[in-house]
């Protein structure tokens, strides 16, 4: 039995189609990130899961219960952090948690839950006076009441400071370790990447893909970029550019996700791989022939290689074997941002 099962779910508002046929299965025990740009239909989907909104068509099952006919059973086993909620105006933080405990017929300790989400210091203040981030934490606490089998979190990091985001992430992991399924939506990519086992990308009411983060990367194709800085004298004769894949990628810009320059320094004893040629090999030619390399381009001392992740080490090895001296290298993976853009802009 899946945690969440959507079959052919559509939602139309008059002429506007908010969801056009969503089929999605979320397995028990996984952390599922629901990703998509603003207005893609993420909140509509979550509202349908909770029967806040009725689908125009399709079938929705949560934890084996038909949401349309048995919403209370779903809500009993699910902890919810909705989007755009307001706390009850007459209740303190602690009273909120106490209400949730009573409604769920649970026996949690309110103070323990408030401690866990870090709002214990404001437990006896009216929740309407809370900041957005504190209200978000408080509602996470009420969602955790009764150890739910499923947590549905709609844009959980809204209004949270970095510390709050980390707390949220830790709680998601803890809940997952306990055996709960976590389904959360976000438009912030790093957060999805940090905790999700699988990701579904929604755009314009359609589910474009469902995969693991790694799977998504692979799916987009050549994924890594390796920039190698060579000793200036090495191969200075060959100032060429080769690109068997058809397109040479531009030089890596922005942040380098990995830098391991110093470790390779000093290891460059010049040992010509092909002494019969009498000169140093053309690095572009060396790299081009390696399996998994899509493109190579050269700019003075720098060699920019677009290749699969597993080919990177091979590139470095081959260059050294060819007698070239590597001074430094950086490697960068395709960011989720690029993936996201490539999926949602209809390149594929």
């Amino acid at each position, binding site marked *: 039995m899946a945690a969440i099962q959507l079959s052919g779910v559509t939602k139309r508002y008059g002429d506007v189609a908010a969801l056009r046929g969503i089929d999605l299965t979320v397995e028990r025990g996984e952390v599922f990130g629901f990703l998509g740009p603003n207005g893609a239909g993420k909140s509509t989907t979550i509202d349908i899961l909770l029967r806040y909104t009725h689908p125009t068509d399709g079938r929705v099952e949560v934890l084996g219960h038909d949401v349309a006919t048995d919403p209370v059973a779903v809500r009993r086993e*699910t902890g919810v952090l909705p989007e755009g909620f307001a706390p009850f*105006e007459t209740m303190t933080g602690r009273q909120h948690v106490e209400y*949730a405990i009573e409604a769920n017929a649970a026996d949690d300790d309110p103070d323990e839950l408030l401690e866990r989400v870090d709002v214990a210091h404001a437990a006896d203040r009216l929740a309407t006076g809370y900041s957005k981030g504190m209200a978000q934490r408080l509602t996470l606490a*009420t969602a955790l009441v009764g150890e739910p089998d499923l947590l549905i979190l709609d844009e959980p990091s809204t209004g949270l400071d970095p510390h709050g985001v980390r707390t949220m992430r830790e709680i998601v992991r803890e809940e997952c370790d306990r055996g709960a399924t976590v389904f959360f939506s976000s438009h912030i990519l790093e957060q999805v990447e940090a905790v999700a086992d699988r990701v579904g990308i929604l755009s314009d009411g359609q589910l474009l893909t469902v995969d693991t983060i790694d799977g998504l990367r692979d799916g987009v194709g050549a994924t890594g970029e390796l920039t190698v800085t060579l000793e200036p004298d090495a191969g200075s004769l060959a100032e060429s550019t080769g690109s068997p894949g058809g397109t040479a990628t531009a030089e890596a810009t922005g942040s380098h996700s990995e830098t391991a320059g110093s470790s390779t320094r000093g290891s460059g004893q010049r040992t010509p791989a092909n002494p019969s040629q009498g000169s140093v090999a053309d690095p572009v030619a060396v790299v081009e022939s390696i399996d998994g390399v899509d493109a190579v381009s050269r700019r003075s001392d720098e060699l920019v290689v677009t290749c699969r992740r597993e080919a990177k080490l091979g590139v470095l090895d081959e260059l050294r074997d060819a007698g070239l001296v590597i001074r430094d290298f950086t490697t960068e993976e395709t960011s989720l941002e690029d993936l996201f853009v490539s999926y949602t802009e209809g390149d594929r």
Partner: protein
Amino acid sequence: MSWTLIAQKEIGDLRRNRQLYGMAVLFAAMFGLLGYIHANSVNDGFGSPNELVMLIGMLGTYIIPAVALMLSYETIVKRRHNGQLELLLGFPHHRRDLVLGGYVGRFLVVATVIVAGLWACGMVVVLMGATVLGAAYMAFLFVSLVLALAYTAAGITISASVRSPSWASVATFSVYLMFVLAWRIVPSGLAYLLNGFERPATSPWWTEYVLTLSPNLAVEEIFVWMLPESTAESIALAGSGSGVEFAAVVLLAWIVLLPLAGYLRFDRTDL
């Protein structure tokens, strides 16, 4: 039972935001003042004990529907608008629980306010040495509560049926104008319309029935039926004339069918 938790929360909300106490004090002051005026005039030798229910009845006709509508029309629509409903429905509640719990909880608050008012009035009259006719007074309390229940039902129905709080206030105000202030002229107005914009020679047979459709008049019909005949005559209260059974059916429809319709509409719409 999940709806009882909601009802408790409704009562708790109205206590915590002081509306319950504020309204109870206001009602006690208003009805207490009428009790004082009545007891004074009885002590001065004017008026009879029968006149007490007439006096408080004139006030009750207007302010009981007002307080019942006021305390109920926001119950659901306000939370729907501000997002509390998303939070509330994240807990194991059915939308039915929200309507029923809101209805019961709000009615209990309205009932408390009315009891406080009538208790204060009775106390003032008794303490000033005048008599309170027990049977008539209890009958008045009973019909006041029925009246309050009917208008609480109307408020809850409006609250469950519309999406925006401003529409809810417009609808609530319209209900008050129509059924509390204007209904007595509705049957003759309707007869005038149906007769081709001319005043009919005799009132049509349905006049009394249309008249009884307003809870105020249905309750009056029942009140007259409950009162000793002498009391009813002495305070010149006639009722709507439709018969007590029809009045009871009308009130039952307001109290049961209206909120049911409101719930069904609420359940079928998106938050």
